[in-house]
């Protein structure tokens, strides 16, 4: 009797397979980064003269909030990966020698690997562009000097949490877009309705799910400031906020993904 394949072999193969499948997105990312670099350098060269005359213009630096750009990528990637494997489709490779739930999780993991690679590439390019543009305009402040070490990890976690949610939608639903856009919209709509009905305090509490200290925005949008001071200015980024939001939303997303993958084992 032949054995079933080893998980590690299957996982490696999925990384190759998914990489090939979504290489278009990869190329898009590369293209956007190249464009960004070109524009940044061009603009900073134009500003050089101005910068020498007045005080320094800020370079094209990086803040955790910038990860919001990558979050869009995290939402798109699962849709592309799973678009041929909708739950209702009868597919030959349902007959592959792996449990269907394992397959779903392994493939999702393979996609996450590429997503992290893309995020790392993004950050590397941003740092380099920042250094180059600062050099062009004659600024001496070192790259990312105002950032704590942990802040560099924010894009990775933000993107990951968004990706896990989006994967759950792509694996579990026939039209994943509905499930990615729908629940936030419905929730926002409900809060609005509550506010219009006069319960503005309740509505504000409800919106804390998005914008609160441990809200969705902190977990997936990179808004990890410690809050606002009396004058309405943003406080320094808070590692507690980042960890708390990530763990909370990360656990919820992972649980959802696991359940949705398990559901694939069920047959009619």
């Amino acid at each position, binding site marked *: 009797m032949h054995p079933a394949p080893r998980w590690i072999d299957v996982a490696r193969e999925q990384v190759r397979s998914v990489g090939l499948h979504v290489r278009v997105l990869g190329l898009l990312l590369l293209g956007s980064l190249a464009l960004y670099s070109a524009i940044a350098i061009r603009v900073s060269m134009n500003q050089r003269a101005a910068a020498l005359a007045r005080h320094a213009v800020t370079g094209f630096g990086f803040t955790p909030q910038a990860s919001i750009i990558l979050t869009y990528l995290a939402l798109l990637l699962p849709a592309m990966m799973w678009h*041929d494997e909708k739950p209702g*489709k009868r*597919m030959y490779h349902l007959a592959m020698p*792996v449990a269907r739930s394992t397959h779903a999780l392994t493939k999702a993991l393979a996609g996450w690997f590429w997503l992290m690679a893309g995020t790392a590439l993004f950050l590397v390019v941003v740092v380099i562009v920042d250094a180059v543009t600062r050099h062009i305009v004659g600024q001496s402040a070192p790259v990312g000097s105002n950032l704590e070490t942990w802040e560099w990890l924010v894009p990775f976690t933000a993107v990951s949490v968004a990706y896990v949610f989006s994967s759950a939608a792509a694996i579990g639903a026939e039209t994943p877009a509905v499930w990615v856009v729908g629940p936030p919209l419905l929730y926002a709509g409900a809060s609005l309705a509550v506010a219009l009905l006069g319960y503005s305090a309740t509505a504000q509490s409800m919106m804390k799910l998005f914008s609160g200290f441990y809200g969705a925005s902190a977990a997936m949008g990179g808004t990890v400031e410690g809050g606002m001071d009396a004058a309405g200015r943003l406080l320094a980024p808070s590692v507690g906020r980042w960890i708390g939001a990530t763990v909370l939303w990360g656990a919820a997303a992972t649980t959802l993904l696991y359940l949705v993958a398990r559901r694939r084992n069920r047959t009619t």
Partner: protein
Amino acid sequence: MPGPLPTDLSAGELAIATHDLSKQYKTVAALTGLALQVPEGAVYLLVGPNGAGKSTTIKILLDLIEPTSGTARVLGLDPRAQPALVRANVGYVPEQLDWGYAWMRTGRLLEHHAKYFPSWDRDYAARLFRTFDLRLDQKLGTLSKGQGRRVHLAMALAHRPPVLILDEPTDGLDPVMRDETTGVLIDHIADAPTTVLLCTHHVSEFDQFADHIGVLRNGELRAQLPLLELRRGLRRYRADIPADWGGASLFGAAALRKTTTHRDLDWTVWGDESAITAELAVAGAVVRDAVPLSLSDATLALLSPKEVIVRAAARTADDTHLLHSTEASK
């Protein structure tokens, strides 16, 4: 309702066995108490009309759908408990091809499969592709029906599984490729003992290759037996009968097809040839002929028993015949 033919193959090792397997959809009973028994090393032809339950049975064996009740075993394994291990030991060609990866090229698909099946034989896969006239650089989404089926066949065979489950393996193939497929399958099982479960409408194409048969109708087996036994036990009897012959209801359900005129009979009957000939003789019939049936004719007789009685009134001078024919399905 059981037919007159045997359905029990349980003596000996079974590569595939179902016990009281039933599948009920909302209004349709796809399978009712099926006892499929495929002996180890057999080439088992599963025949039956569309909707008989062939594809349903196969999908249950591979844990693609779940039964309503009953059990199934493949190589002793329960597909619901160990689906990955079962599928690692089965080469499956589905009836309806549905590529999950339309963008993937055939060569890449082979590599993909090689990682999923540790027993994959790369050289054999390449040889099969050559035999089936397939290229390695074609996108799956652009394959024709026939090409797709050949790709599936190559993939099912390349990891040399102990069990092959082929659902209409030659559907959509031209006569040349059909012949190649038969040759490939013959060579394949000559190289290593393999159990083959083959679903097809093209019975005559596989009647030299198969050695067992299961006839499925309305979710249950009308017959399940070795082909040698079927060939030995089913005969088409042609006999002359006297006028006012009283043996019209002889043999009951064992007479699958009966055409009776007032002078002779043409009956397809299951049973021992000498006993049947003797019984007919005792009833006054003179047996001229007892011919074995081709597999397609035998299958047809099992799937659609028929009785035709042709009566002719005495000829009058101006030659008017009154012919009544009644057709009643049993």
